């Protein structure tokens, strides 16, 4: 028999007011992506058919570089949050679910870093 009170047992284990964190992050990135995606699609339309130097010149423009980095971060964060929910809903084998979510998260970080690095490399003239 434990002498700890019911309150003492749950203290530190219960809600840390973070239950909606995933939901909130998904919405915040969604709101950020609305203008970023519209800007990106419009930009790609206007440079359609541009050659290597022109594309690099466009990516390297400071405003474009900054917006592309913001877009990459928001896209990969939003994508991995969404894929996580899809995997949680449809993969019912526990180890496979965990493994696939970990793979998605690692892949999102790796691709995000690769994209941001490439943008910065072009922007600083590498």
């Amino acid at each position: 028999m434990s002498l700890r009170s019911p309150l003492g047992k749950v203290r530190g284990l219960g809600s840390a007011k973070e239950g909606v964190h995933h939901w909130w992050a998904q919405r915040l990135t969604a709101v950020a992506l609305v203008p970023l995606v519209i800007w990106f699609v419009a930009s790609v339309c206007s440079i359609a058919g541009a050659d290597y130097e022109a594309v690099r010149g466009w990516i390297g423009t400071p405003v474009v570089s900054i917006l592309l980095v913001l877009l990459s971060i928001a896209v990969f964060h939003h994508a991995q949050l969404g894929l996580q929910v899809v995997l949680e809903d449809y993969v019912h084998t526990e180890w496979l679910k965990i493994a696939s979510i970990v793979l998605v998260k690692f892949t999102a970080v790796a691709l995000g870093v690769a994209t941001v690095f490439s943008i910065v490399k072009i922007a600083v003239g590498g």
Partner: protein
Amino acid sequence: MASHNRPLSPHLQVYRPQLTSVLSITHRATGVALALGTLLLVWWIVAAATGESAFAIAQAFIGSWIGRLLLLCWSFAVFYHLCNGIRHLFWDAGKGFELEIAYMSGKLVIAAAIVLTIATWVWGYSSMGAF
């Protein structure tokens, strides 16, 4: 366990598809497709940072008929997910749950996605000097 006998809902085999449920699963499907499509975008930017020959390979793939077909699907998925995502944000704010409004906004999303996709391709081809 007793929980095995609990009713499940909705049972997709006996559940008549509705506009709302079809748009809902399409939102997921386009989300997954966009996540995969992002690989093309990553390839394009990494290739531009790598060098002229790497960029030429990426550009040749994107410019091929299969690349353009993927881009067409990708652009529709972008606009569908964007418009329906905005519809979801209204729901998150507690607005638009009435049945007629949910159907109306659903039809609006489909129309907007189609119009925006066509407009994008007209713009893209015209800036390449196709017209």
